[in-house]
């Protein structure tokens, strides 16, 4: 089992070499990105509006192709595979669920992705059932997605990607406009995916959410990587982060003001540091 997961880890790395991209309008959105993301990593991408976050992750599943440089998912160069093909490796939850939901009921909606990937029916059923349970939608399988509140539509969008069982899952601003209870649900989904050994990449403006759920943080600024490293290191760089309109998490700022020796990002770290002090 261990052997298998190690093997998987090797083949599903994301490798980005000197990636550049410009939109037809002439806007240069990515100006030379180098990144390596290993299988099973939990990565948050932060940065100011217009820093290139969405443009970057749209390269991971081939929706955008590099103007120069390269992006590979495992042994696949994204320029050589269609988006539909790459969908078997990279799941992508769009920011606005209304841009992807169309089925008359939740069950059909969530089955759409795994069916496209050509799994056998029993496997599709199994994956769908698990995804629905994880997103707390099991009771709502027969409901039309558009009869659900926007909060639950967001969960349907999540489920419909999770059911595809891809080794890499991308979330674009999953917590935007969500209340505290739903943010907790989404955090739980991410934790479960992590336990399953999946790579989770999330774009977010919610820095506290980022601190509590991600091990690694990449800060983008103006199409370049500004900071990249373990969450605790990156989120402590108050002055550098300010260049891309990001503030450290609440508890990091509190810890700093209190003069704690170590940088803290979460509640546990904070309490531990206060006790030691």
């Amino acid at each position: 089992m261990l052997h298998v997961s190690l093997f998987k880890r090797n083949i599903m790395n994301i490798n980005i070499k000197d990636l550049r991209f410009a939109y037809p309008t002439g806007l240069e959105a990515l100006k030379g990105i180098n990144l390596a993301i290993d299988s099973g990593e939990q990565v948050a991408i932060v940065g100011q509006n217009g820093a290139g976050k969405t443009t970057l992750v749209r390269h991971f599943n081939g929706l955008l192709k590099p103007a120069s440089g390269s992006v590979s998912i495992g042994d696949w160069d994204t320029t050589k595979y269609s988006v539909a093909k790459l969908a078997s490796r990279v799941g992508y939850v769009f920011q606005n669920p209304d841009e992807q939901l169309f089925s008359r009921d939740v069950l059909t909606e969530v089955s759409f992705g795994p069916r496209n990937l050509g799994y056998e029916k029993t496997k599709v059923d199994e994956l769908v059932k698990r995804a629905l349970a994880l997103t707390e939608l099991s009771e709502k399988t027969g409901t039309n997605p558009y009869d659900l509140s926007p909060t639950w539509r967001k969960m349907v969008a999540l489920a419909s990607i999770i059911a595809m069982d891809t080794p890499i899952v991308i979330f674009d601003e999953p917590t935007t406009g969500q209340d505290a209870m739903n943010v907790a649900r989404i955090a739980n989904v991410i934790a479960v995916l992590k336990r399953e050994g999946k790579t989770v990449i999330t774009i977010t403006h919610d820095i506290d959410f980022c601190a509590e759920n991600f091990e690694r943080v990449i800060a983008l600024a103006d199409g370049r990587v500004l900071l990249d490293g373990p969450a605790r290191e990156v989120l402590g760089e108050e002055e550098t982060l300010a260049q891309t309109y990001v503030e450290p998490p609440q508890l990091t700022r509190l810890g700093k003001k209190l003069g704690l020796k170590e940088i803290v990002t979460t509640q546990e770290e904070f309490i531990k540091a206060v006790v030691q002090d």
Partner: protein
Amino acid sequence: MHERLSFHIKRDSVLHRLNPLTKLVLTLALIFLAFTFPWYWMPHLLILIAVIPLSLLGKVFREFWLTALKLILPAAGFLFLMQAFFQPIGTDVIFKFYFLDITSESLMFAFKNAMRVFVMVSAFTLFLLTTHPSELMSDLTRRGLPGQFAYVIISTLQIIPQMQAKAQTIISAQRSRGLDTESTFFKRAGSVLPLVGPLVFGSLVEVEERAIAIEARGFTSKHAKTSLHEIPDSDFDKILRWILFALIVFSIGLNLWLS
């Protein structure tokens, strides 16, 4: 990252400085003359004495001909071929292609119609290139066009590219779920629902929210509206409009009288 659908090019030229209504009348005059004036060479003459000089006068010569090459000429060319082949007039066969005959009459007829279409599309293109859409609407509203009507026209111009952008996002979202939009026709037919569903639903929400947003900004206010941009309307504009109007009437009158 999508830009607007507007051909307008901001330049300072005689044509740009004309009142929008004057330019609209000018456009209509060119079209009416091309279609109703009872003289075979009228459309051809208009291209020489009006379309080309106007594109220079408006300082949009390059942009105009680029559009013309991409858009107007292929359309006019297609029309020309269709009519040349399928117009059952004349007896003087000059070319045979299987069962299709081309007569000199049908050739002349097709040439004239292609030119008419060319004048029409050119006139509109020149109009759009040199006229800011919101200025046109402000001007027409000032002259009594209902504000709601003007809004519908101008927002449609903007919303079409936004709908396209939205459709693009939806397609991206579904491709990310493994929908193969690049494969065979039959698979494509099955992929219509996932694309159209979100577009329709999204539009319904959008229309309601946009109505609220513009209402919140005084759209139905009973105050007399003002305009950010000053819209020129000189005496020259007024005279020109009357002359053009007279030309239109003359052309139509002549056409009716001769027929």
